[in-house]
């Protein structure tokens, strides 16, 4: 037979082989597929991201409320924790017996204590595979063995536990704001225990500690000579201030937003040593 005469039979044979290979590849890949419910993996990822958003919101709210409580205590106690200074009624006596003046450190201690008292509750619901259709009754076996015995609240419990374990890692001052960073929170992705979505929450709060630091400086600079001089200078500097004399003390109360800064100052006694700037960690 002429060489040209065999072209067509070879072509037909090649078509048969190529289509056969294509079919077997598709059939093999289909058999190998792990995603037995189409879209389940994507849905599980979306659920993990959604849980992350809820955790961020929960921490943001808890942080705002903790900040208010911490600042309220610091303002009522001249920048100190409750009980650090001797008091004159509801006014803390601002003198060297209070210890080092370091509102930043006190704020960090207070806010950490406060936020740890909030307990996260998750609304995470695991996908009920049986519900998705009659065919799926047999597809339960797609769940890894380990997860079958863990109960329906397994991922919810992991999420709650990891959030409640998280803590404030760092508080940094930047452009008159406080940047609060939390430790990492790992969220397991449903249906795949070896996969996780990790978030590292970070929030910005306006730095209300600057007012406390400025108040300390103002007292240090304007209350050296006499009570009268101190009173006049403070009234000139602060618009919303009330000052009451009681023996050798001036009882000072300044309204600042939702807080009242309180201090009892004795001109003749030394102010506490300041530590106005945070130490570098």
């Amino acid at each position, binding site marked *: *037979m*002429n060489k*040209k*005469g065999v072209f*067509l*039979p070879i*072509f*037909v044979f090649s*078509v*048969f082989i190529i*289509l056969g290979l294509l*079919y077997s590849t*598709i*059939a093999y890949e*289909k058999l190998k*597929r792990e*995603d*037995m*419910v*189409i*879209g*389940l993996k*994507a*849905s599980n990822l*979306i659920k993990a*991201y*959604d849980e992350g*958003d*809820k955790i961020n*919101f*929960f921490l943001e*709210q*808890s942080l*705002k*409320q903790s900040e*208010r*409580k911490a600042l309220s205590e610091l303002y009522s106690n001249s920048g100190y924790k409750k009980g650090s200074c001797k008091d004159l009624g509801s006014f803390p006596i601002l003198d060297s017996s209070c210890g080092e003046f370091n509102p930043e450190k006190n704020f960090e201690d207070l806010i950490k204590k406060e936020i740890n*008292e*909030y*307990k*996260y*509750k*998750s*609304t995470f619901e695991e*996908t009920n595979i049986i519900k*998705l*259709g009659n*065919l*799926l009754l047999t*597809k339960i076996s797609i769940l890894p063995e380990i997860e079958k015995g863990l109960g329906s609240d397994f991922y919810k419990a992991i999420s709650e536990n990891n959030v409640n374990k998280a803590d404030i890692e760092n508080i940094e001052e930047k452009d008159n704001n406080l940047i609060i960073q939390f430790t990492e929170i790992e969220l397991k992705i449903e249906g795949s225990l070896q996969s996780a979505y990790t978030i590292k929450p970070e929030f910005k709060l306006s730095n209300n500690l600057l007012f406390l630091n400025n108040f300390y400086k103002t007292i240090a600079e304007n209350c050296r000579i006499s009570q009268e001089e101190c009173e006049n200078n403070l009234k000139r500097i602060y618009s919303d201030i009330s000052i009451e004399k009681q023996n050798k003390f001036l009882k000072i109360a300044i309204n600042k937003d939702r807080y009242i800064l309180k201090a009892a100052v004795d001109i003749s006694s030394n102010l506490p040593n300041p530590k106005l700037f945070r130490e570098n960690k």
Partner: protein
Amino acid sequence: MHNLYKKGVWGYPLELAASLVLLAIILIFYSILFFGFDVAKSEAPVISSENYQDSLTLVNLLKTQVKIDNNLISVADAVDIFYTGNSDKSKLEQPITEILNKLPKPKNRNSHYMLKIINEDISLEFGESKLIESKFLEQKIYLPLSSKKNVLVKLYLSCSGCNKKEIEVIS
């Protein structure tokens, strides 16, 4: 005979016919295999679109700033103030209802959003409540209060006669 094998001539009557028939049989066979049995199509069921839903609408609603007693605060903070006993429901009612009315709804349907705040002591409900209607687009979150307790906040679309397709359009 030699002329029959010349290039450009319809030649090889036997080989040509047999090859073409064989090609046709192969193509028909694979067409049935690929398209008839839909080899590429997965037999696995497809997950419902409801499973792709997130809670962004509810989170954004809680973050929305509203004016209460001349103060601009978030809905979440307003709820906290209510539970600390410094506010009453009537102050929350108007701003929250306004937000709920702005959320996208299916057209030509009697539908409205409901916001429920569930607490062991006092629960709050905003929006029109009708028992017969079906719930769609349900979203929920636990909201922390300054008392360190959590309240469960639920948002859903209450609609009579809505179907899944109409809901998919707005979700």
